């Protein structure tokens, strides 16, 4: 990992912790952004953590960009040595894979796709060496995921799967971005899953849809009354495959204000996780299931 600093004009500093994605890079980015927040440097206006990088927006009328750069660089060594631990939560997100709405959309944009003769999930399964879509879904929903970034548009989470490199799923983005994506589509691009928080343009492959809103500017959804965005970086997610009946029942519960996302508070330790990922993930799931 080699950290690279650059100015984004006169109001931003962009810090690339690593060119490639890894949990180590994510944790270093997270601890550096936490350090920036705690050090309360005058002039900082936005602190935005991303997957393997982060960005600080500042007011150059308050602090010279060179001085801001020095302040941020001075936090790097300490952040590197910091314990990679996190008090967070694990959340179960229901996913109706291969639903009719993303299917209709992906058929409409077939000429923008690498493989016009298959669906997005068939294509993803095949290029990642799975013989069936069911096997692929089992892998996608098998191990949990870190929310490694929130952004693009309102409250949209990027998720990175908590498995070692050989088990990582990788897919390209559409050849040309779509002009439409159904709201709450579970998508995939590069090594990241995402949930489209609102309807709109998008370039990620589309695998399914969740019945659970994750952004509500009106704050009417029962679990979004305190804040309109559901996710923050560091959340852990476990996908739960559901069928049409369960999807419909969940949607009805959301509409009735009765839907309660299943979740549990957990602490995460990167070193322990790296020692034995499978059993660490199993422990996280036990917490979710209340054991």
């Amino acid at each position, binding site marked *: 990992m080699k950290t690279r600093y650059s100015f984004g004009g006169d109001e931003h500093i962009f810090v690339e912790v*690593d*060119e*490639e*994605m890894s949990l180590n890079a994510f944790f270093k980015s997270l601890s550096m952004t936490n350090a920036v927040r705690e050090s309360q440097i005058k002039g900082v206006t936005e602190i935005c953590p991303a997957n393997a990088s982060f960005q600080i927006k500042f007011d150059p009328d308050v602090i010279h960009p060179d001085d801001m750069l020095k302040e941020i660089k001075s936090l790097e060594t300490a952040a590197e040595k910091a314990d990679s631990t996190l008090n967070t939560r694990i959340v179960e997100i229901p996913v109706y894979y291969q639903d009719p709405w993303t299917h209709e959309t992906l058929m409409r944009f077939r000429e923008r796709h690498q493989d016009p003769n298959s669906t997005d999930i068939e294509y993803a399964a095949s290029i990642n060496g799975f013989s069936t879509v069911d096997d692929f879904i089992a892998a996608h929903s098998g191990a949990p995921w870190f929310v490694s970034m929130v952004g693009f548009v309102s409250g949209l989470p*990027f998720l990175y799967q908590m498995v070692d490199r050989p088990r990582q799923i990788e897919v390209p983005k559409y050849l040309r971005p779509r002009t439409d994506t159904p709201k709450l589509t579970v998508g995939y691009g590069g090594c990241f899953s995402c949930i489209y928080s609102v309807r709109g343009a998008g370039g990620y492959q589309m695998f399914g849809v969740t019945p659970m809103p994750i952004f509500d*500017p009106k704050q009417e959804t029962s679990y979004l009354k305190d804040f309109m965005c559901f996710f923050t970086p560091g959340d852990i997610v476990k996908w739960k495959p559901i069928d049409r009946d369960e999807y419909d029942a969940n949607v009805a519960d959301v509409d009735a204000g009765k839907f309660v996302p299943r979740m549990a508070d957990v602490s995460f330790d990167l070193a322990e996780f790296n020692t034995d990922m499978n059993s660490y993930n199993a422990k996280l799931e036990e917490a979710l299931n209340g054991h």
Partner: protein
Amino acid sequence: MGIKVHNPGLATTIQDLGRPGYFHLGIPISGAMDRFAMRAANMLVGNDEGAAGLEAVFMGPELEFTSDCTVAVCGADMPIKLDGEERAGWSSIAVKAGQVLSFDFLKTGARIYIAVSGGITVPEYLGSRSTYAIGALGGVDGRPIAAGDDLPTGGDAGPGDGRGVPENLRRAPGNPAELRVLPGLYWHRITDQAGRNFFEDEWKVAPEADRMGYRFRGGRPMEFVERKQPFGAGSDPSNIVDGCYSYGSIQVPGGTEPIVLHRDAVSGGGYFMLGTVISADMDLIGQLQPHTPSKFVKVDMETALQARRDRHALLDQVRAALD
């Protein structure tokens, strides 16, 4: 006390100076694309510079005022009419209850800013009244204004006629428009030749130009420095591991058409950026029409900071002129 919308125009939104502090959740700052014009319009009608007004793009709205007030229109050159009678831009206009403000066709620039004394007083969301339509936030139910809307205003009569921003203090893009750029971010991804071409070529604003970003076309395609794509970045040489985007940053998907992100920017994504338009020139982008010839001009940080100081000084002169 308020405004009845007879005709909304093309995409007229309520904006103020924006909603900082939520970019880490993908909620951009929003607010007036041309903040200078918004501030000037507010000053003319005696408001705080950050009061909410209307931003109208390419086509003006038709508005009826339900109480006596003062109105000002700054920004693009679009003939202004009060009950059919032509009135001057960059000036305060006394309006009687029941009078109707309308506009003729746009001459130059792209966006007008309409301030009304007392400001537009729709509820604030996350500390701002700015409309962010993609997230359905702010403004009127998170959308552009529509015919039949009644917009509430602060409702004082304001200073009336007679105030104006001197002509030499107004700001408009040149032809070709010049946008100053600080190279950086992922500049190293393109070859030296591609970097030179970017600044040499004349670009034109593409039709895909809105509050989220301005696309340009007409320059030569870019060549990338060869590399094995890093894990997680995706296969196209213009892809990076998804990261944060700066306001004003210039991404070039596929190496063909640069996109400059503006006030309703997406907060991140997987395309490399070659640099950033300096903060002092962001307002100018809001006044560019499609097909406007444009040049990107390479500058260093000290030039960017001096330009920013110049902008502040200009604003101070407007404040002094209207004091």
